[in-house]
């Protein structure tokens, strides 16, 4: 029996295909899109904001339990786009890792260190056959002591980059095109501009106006570095400001 092409198993586990591709990793990316949610993150001059859709499929569901925004430590937030179960595993491990870091080294885990840790873990799943890659794209946000506000995105392939603005999920490409135009001249957004750019990007790409309970917004600011999820009243204020502006 020839194992020439991996015997067809290159689609089932993470071994190379004849073209040098990892099908399982590519399928993991598709799983992220299959969740039907789009998320956006924007970094401003002294703040970072992430926004995601909050789709509650059933009116009987407890709305407060449906969330994709997770605090990892007091100062680090994680927005998970994709399979919620995989997201919760990742969040649990990240929280553990961040807590151990604080204990071991005596200072808070920086944003890029957490992003790198998540990406390295994802890489292991792409190289070892016994675990599949997670179907989650994670956006990490926080204020770095030395470099200010930072936004990182980690994907199932194990890549991670810092971003000025980015998107993940179903309408990822459309959102990135929109954001590229907005961020072309390296604008230094204030806190309000950052939040409103993120929300209006989502509205534009999905072509709908949101009600305050249909989106989730998380922020960190240099003058209040704790990761915070905005309340519906605050979201409403921003939505009003956006519609008045237009």
């Amino acid at each position, binding site marked *: 029996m020839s194992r020439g092409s991996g015997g067809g198993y290159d689609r089932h586990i993470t071994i190379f295909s004849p073209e040098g591709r990892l099908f399982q990793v590519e399928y993991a990316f598709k799983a992220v899109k299959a969740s039907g949610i789009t998320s956006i993150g924007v970094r401003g001059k002294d703040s970072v904001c992430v926004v995601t859709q909050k789709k509650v499929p059933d009116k009987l569901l407890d709305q407060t339990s449906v969330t994709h925004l997770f605090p990892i430590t007091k100062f680090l937030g994680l927005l998970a786009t994709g399979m919620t179960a995989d997201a919760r595993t990742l969040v649990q491990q990240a929280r553990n890792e961040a807590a151990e870091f604080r204990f071991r080294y005596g200072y808070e885990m920086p944003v890029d260190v957490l992003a790198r840790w998540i*990406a390295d873990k994802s890489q292991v799943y*792409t*190289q070892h056959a016994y675990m599949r890659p997670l179907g989650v794209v994670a956006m990490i946000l926080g204020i770095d002591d030395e470099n200010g506000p930072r936004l990182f995105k980690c994907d199932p392939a194990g890549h991670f980059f810092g*971003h000025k*603005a*980015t998107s993940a999920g179903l309408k990822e490409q459309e959102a990135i095109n929109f954001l590229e135009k907005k961020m*072309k001249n390296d604008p230094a957004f204030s806190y309000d501009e950052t939040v409103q750019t993120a929300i209006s990007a989502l509205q534009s790409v999905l072509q709908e106006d949101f009600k305050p309970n249909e989106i989730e917004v998380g922020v960190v600011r240099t003058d209040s570095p704790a990761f915070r999820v905005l309340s519906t009243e605050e979201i409403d204020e921003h939505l009003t400001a956006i519609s008045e502006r237009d």
Partner: protein
Amino acid sequence: MGDSQYSFSLTTFSPSGKLVQIEHALTAVGSGQTSLGIKAANGVVIATEKKLPSILVDEASVQKIQVLTPNIGVVYSGMGPDSRVLVRKSRKQAEQYHRLYKESIPVTQLVRETAAVMQEFTQSGAGRPMLGWLQTILDFNVKLKKTKLRALGNMSHKKTLLGVRPFGVSLLVAGFDDNGPQLYQVDPSGSYFSWKASAMGKNVSNAKTFLEKRYTDDMELDDAVHTAILTLKEGYMHLKLLFF
């Protein structure tokens, strides 16, 4: 653990005697961004394309060329995440050498140890009959529930790795030690060679032809840097000509 289900090698010989997973890994490298290295009389230069997927990416957060020790650096072509594993492993090996011998690790030794790690991942697992394969895939869904997550960082154990694929990167290691400037290329198979100048990734044949023409044994480092940049630009230009 789900490992026992993969206690056979994913990299096995084909009837024609080839290790196809390694060949596929090389294909993955060949579709990566171009990188190259040139050994000069008084130093070594390594360079790479740094094309980011969008202008929104913070380019300061991306570093493709990495330091392994104060006098050894490395660049890769292929899968970025895989290269991070090797960089981390190599740095640790260099440090362990220093702890033992109170001297910086020679370039050849670091290259050899890094190559050994890459080779390990091509010879994973004990032998098991082919039939076991099918059983494994069928059991996959069931075992998934019982599989525990394993922490990263166990690669220093002597036990053979189970169910892994080769690394999808080739590395160019540039260093300067008592033997002078050195440049090594390490492939996914774990084989390594010393080069006067080499290139990897896309456009490798054009780049190598260009380097062959331009290389001289007595090049100064500044010339080498200049040539490296020209070679990368050449690859760019060539691509543009292909489309227009």
